[in-house]
């Protein structure tokens, strides 16, 4: 059974359709990449899955439960975390406070502390900057904080929206290697990326989204060597 199963999902912004019958599946332990151009509906897909925007039609199932109408704040405690595009850290709080808010749904202090330790192992930089205000971090550090904060809820699946956007090449590499590490540590990852090459390199499977529809899917390696993908998304 798929951990996350999206069936015929449609979303409209006013009268404009943003998603038109999108279906995909994420199995436990996989890294799934969702690639596509600007405006294809990648972010909309993630926002709808985590309940930030309502769907017009279709069904979203998480661990076999229908979560189509569940509001965002209730989805977190079910085991799904979302690292939003543009990072959205709380700028006037310290790194530590941001991470604690990430564990808002984790009630036992002991569990919270042990997750925090794990997160600091993934992101030693965050530990160094523990007392610094999040708004004063560099873009790459803020991305790490956003990812660490999402991990603090101890999710089964983590949805990441454009984690490499606007980062220098060094940070891009670092972020992608952390995603792989997080995946190896047992988290399922749904990754939305414009950097298709990088995303396909670390993903198990991938879906290609074009103007609100899935136009292609398959093993990431196959897509990486597919001519039409190479032309459209890999700049070759």
């Amino acid at each position, binding site marked *: 059974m798929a951990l996350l199963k999206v069936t015929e999902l449609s979303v409209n912004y006013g009268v404009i359709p943003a998603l038109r019958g999108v279906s995909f599946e994420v199995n436990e332990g996989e890294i799934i990449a969702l690639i596509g151009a600007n405006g294809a509906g990648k972010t909309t897909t993630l926002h709808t899955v985590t309940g930030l925007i309502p769907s017009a039609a279709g069904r979203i199932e998480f661990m076999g439960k229908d979560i189509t109408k569940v*509001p965002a*704040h209730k989805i*977190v405690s079910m085991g799904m975390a979302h690292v939003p595009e543009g990072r959205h850290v709380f700028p006037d709080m310290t790194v530590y406070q941001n991470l604690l808010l990430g564990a808002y749904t984790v009630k036992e202090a002991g569990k919270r502390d042990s997750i925090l330790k794990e997160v600091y192992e993934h992101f030693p930089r965050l530990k160094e900057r523990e007392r610094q205000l999040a708004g004063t971090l560099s873009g790459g550090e803020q991305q790490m904080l956003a990812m660490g904060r999402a991990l603090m809820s101890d999710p089964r699946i983590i949805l990441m929206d454009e984690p490499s956007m606007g980062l220098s090449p060094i940070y891009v590499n670092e972020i992608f290697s952390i995603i792989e590490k997080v995946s190896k540590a047992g988290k399922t990852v749904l990754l939305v990326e414009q950097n298709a090459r990088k995303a396909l390199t670390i993903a198990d499977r991938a879906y290609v989204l074009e103007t609100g529809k899935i136009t292609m899917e398959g093993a990431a390696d196959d897509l990486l060597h597919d001519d039409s993908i190479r032309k459209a998304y890999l700049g070759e």
Partner: protein
Amino acid sequence: MVSFITNLINGLSLGSIYAIIAIGYTMVYGIAKMLNFAHGDVIMVGAFAAYTIISTMGLPTPVGILAAIVCCTLLGIAIEKIAYRPLRNAGSPLAVLITAIGVSYFLQNGAMLIFGSDTKMFSSVVPLQTLSVGPFLIPGTTIVSILTSVILVSVLQIFINKTRPGQAMLACAQDRAAASLMGISVNNTITLTFAIGSAMAAVAGVLLCSAYPALSPTTGAMPGIKAFVAAVFGGIGSVPGAMVGGLLLGVIEILSRAYISTQLSDAIVFAVLIVVLLVKPTGLFGKVIQEKV
């Protein structure tokens, strides 16, 4: 010199009442991103609740104060749920602003319907007699007002910084979407904010009418506007800013009433606001809002 210090103390007393009201304004603005222009009228409702229990029904004063707090808290929650929540995702922020003005009129006219428009004499809830310290005469209400505001602000600061719901409020104020992705219910947090702000408004109402005992359905209007000015003055959205803004406003008002002109005192208060905003548009403690590119 003696009269100046007496005036200063009176100013701080009035200012601490403004501060309590201004904190309600500023918290709601910071978290719900709306100006609740009905906030001043909640003060009036609190004062009438206390008046009804204490003067009309003859029950003990603490019962009256408690009733005022409970009544305003419930009122604040009801206003938020019935009037503002349905408009939260409406396209224009003006919709909720206009609704707030509507709620304000609704409360004023509702009070007029129930209590009539004539001014009631509110008997002070403060049992303390006027204190003479050296050459200074300090009314009991003054001491109680200042103490109450200091206690309320301290408790509120601890609540915001040390508790889970407090952190949820801070998170919602900074980034609502991100807050809901942390598992925080934005709607519940906003309701809590209205509840706290309205409870504080009840306390302010009782203190205000103890210091200035005339109570009518429009009693809350002017203090409401002044507290709004105080909140803007201190930097809207900032709790310490509202506290300082409220105190300064009270002092400026009383000093200009004493030394410049009674009639012009309100004008001077608003003139000071204009000057502050010209020099520092974000208010004293306000943050520069960065436009995201």
